[in-house]
C-alpha cells in the first residue's frame, strides 16, 4: 500500500477548500475531519495543519520572516527590510515575526523557512575568531 504523506493531505485539503464560499467551507470541514478519523490520521493533524499553513502562504505569495535582533528594530529599518526581502523572494507580502535575542549582541538574524541570513555581531565575531585561529 502506498502511504500518503502529510504534505499531500494538506495540499488536498487546500485544493478542495480553495474556491469555496464560507457556507460551503463550513459544510466541508466536518467531512475533512471524518476523512482524517477514518484514515486514523487525527494524531497527525498538528503536522498537517503546519504544512497547510505553509501551502497557503506560498500559494498566496506570503513569506514569513523570523527576525531576531538584540534591540528592537526602528520603523524605517523594517520598511527597508520588507522592501529588500520582497525583491529577493519575489513575494507579494512579507510578514515579519520579530523576536528579541540579547545573545546576538548587535545586528540581526533573518530566518526564512530553512534559509538563514546571519547579520548579527555574534556571527561576525565567531567568524573573526575562526579566521584568527586558523591553522597556518
Amino acid at each position: 500500500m502506498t502511504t500518503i504523506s502529510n504534505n499531500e493531505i494538506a495540499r488536498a485539503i487546500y485544493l478542495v477548500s480553495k474556491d469555496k464560499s464560507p457556507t460551503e467551507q463550513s459544510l466541508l470541514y466536518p467531512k475533512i475531519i471524518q476523512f482524517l478519523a477514518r484514515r486514523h490520521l487525527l494524531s497527525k493533524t498538528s503536522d498537517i495543519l503546519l504544512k497547510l499553513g505553509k501551502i497557503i502562504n506560498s500559494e498566496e505569495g506570503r513569506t514569513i520572516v523570523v527576525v531576531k535582533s538584540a534591540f528592537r528594530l526602528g520603523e524605517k529599518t523594517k520598511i527597508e527590510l520588507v522592501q529588500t526581502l520582497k525583491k529577493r523572494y519575489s513575494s507579494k507580502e512579507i510578514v515579519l515575526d520579530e523576536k528579541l535575542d540579547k545573545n546576538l549582541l548587535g545586528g540581526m538574524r533573518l530566518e526564512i523557512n530553512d534559509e538563514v541570513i546571519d547579520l548579527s555581531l555574534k556571527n561576525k565575531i565567531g567568524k573573526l575568531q575562526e579566521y584568527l585561529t586558523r591553522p597556518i
Partner: protein
Amino acid sequence: MSNNHIVEILKKEIDNFKSQIKVEKVGQVMEVFDGIAKVSGLSDIKSSEMVTFSNGETGVALNLEEDTVGVIILGDFSKIKEGDEVKATGKILEVPVSDSILGRVVNAIGIPIDGKGAIKTNKTYPIEKVAPGVITRLSVSEPVATGIKVIDAIIPVGRGQRELIIGDRQTGKTAIVIDTILNQKGQNMICVYVSIGQKDSKLRKLQARLEEGKSMGYTVIVSAGASEAAAMSYIAPYAGVSIAEYFMDQGKDVLIIYDDLSKHAVAYREISLLLRRPPGREAYPGDVFYLHSRLLERACRRNKEYGGGSITALPIVETQAGDVTAYIPTNVISITDGQIFLETDLFYKGIRPAVNVGLSVSRVGSNAQIKAMKKVAGTLKLDLAQYRELEAFAQFGSDLDDATKRQLERGKRAVEVLKQLQYAPVKIEHQVVTLYALTKGFMDDVPVEKIKEFEAGLIEYSEHNAKVFYKEIKETKMWTEKGEAELKKAIADFKNSFLTRT
C-alpha cells in the same frame, strides 16, 4: 615578543579579515541514533553533500526524503543533541590532498592521526567521482612487480589491473600486500593502503614494518579503525582512491589496497539498515554491488593524451570457511580482473604464500608479464598442473612408471621453489633465474629439502657468473642465446659444487 608587537600583528590580521555574509541553508536535528541523524529543513541539499553540526562535527547527507534528510555522522555522535542546528556546506564530501601526505597515516576524511602534525594543503578532491571513460583508457601492458614468485610467475598483475585477494582469516592476505608494498621501492610506484575496520594494533604493526623497510616514503595509509563509526569505514576506500587519483593526475602509477572490502560491505549494511533502506540477500542493501563496482572501476590505466598514470587495485575479501559463493565474494570476483585464492589447508601444510594455483587467475596480467618471465612461467604452469593431476597417485610410490615419477618429482620441487618467507620479496631477474633452473630440469637431482638452500646459493653465484644474462633481462626483458649459454654454464657449475659440498 613585546605586547605591542602582538597587538600590531593582531591589528594587521584583523585588517585583512573580510567577513562574508552569505545565505545559509540550515536544518534542525530531529533525532540522533547510532551514528545517524534525521534532520528537518535543508531543502535544497544534494546527495552526499557535506553538512556541519553546531558542535563542529561533519556529516554526509545520504537519504533525501520529503521532509527529512538522513545524515551519517563522521565522528562522535554522542555530542549531537536534538534541536541542534545543521548547516549545509554546498560541497560534496572531499578529502585534502597534497604531496606531503606521503608517509602519513590519515583517517577517512584526510585528517592525520599519526601525531606528526597537520598536513599543509590547499587542494581537495571529491571522494565520489565518476570513473575515467573508455576513451581515456589504455590496456594493461606494464607489470606490477610484487616480488612474490608465485604471483609474478603464474598470476601476474599489470598496472591498472584489479586483482582480488581472497581467502579465510589467517591465510596471509595482508602479508601478500605488505610484501608487495615493500617490493615497490624504486619501482616508481606510490602505494595507498586503506585499512577498513581493522584492529589498530594490526595497523600499528604494519606501519612499523613499512617504516622498517623504508617503504613509508612512497606510501599513504588511510585508516578507519574498528572503534570508529561505520560511516568512516564506508567512506575510507573512496577517500583512499581520491588520494590515489591525485597522484595519478600527476601521471604517476599508484597501487591501492583495500583491506578489506567484506568489512566495508558490513559497514555499509549497518548504515543502510539504520537508514531504513530495504535489506536484500544476507541483509545487504540492493546497491551493494554498485558500492564496490563504482569503487573498483576507478582503478584504470590512462593513455598519454589524458595525462597517463594508473591505479592498480588490490582489494581483499575475507571468506568464511572457504565459501566463495557468498554474496560479497561473488560480487567482487565478478568485478575484478582475476583473483588470488589463499587456502587454510595449504597454509598449514607449510606452503606459504598459501596460493591455490589452480583456482587463481589473472585475466589481463599475462599481457603485462616480461617476455623472459612468460617463457619460464609457461613451462612452470604445465609442470604444476600435471603435478596436481598426478598427486593422488603419489602414495603408490614404487608402482609408478618413470615418466610419472619424474613429473611428481618436478612438481614437488616447483612447489618448494614457489614457497617464500614473509617480508622477503624477490627481484624479478632472480625469479627468472630460479624458475629457469627449475623448468629446465637443473633442480631435478637436488633433494627436495635442499631446494631452498640451492636457490639462495644459485642466486648469489649466478649474480657473479652470469652477468650478461642479468644485463639482458634488465635492459631488454629477454635473454639471448649468449646470455642463456652463460647462465646454463653458471647453473651447471654451481650445481656440481653444491652437490659435492652437501
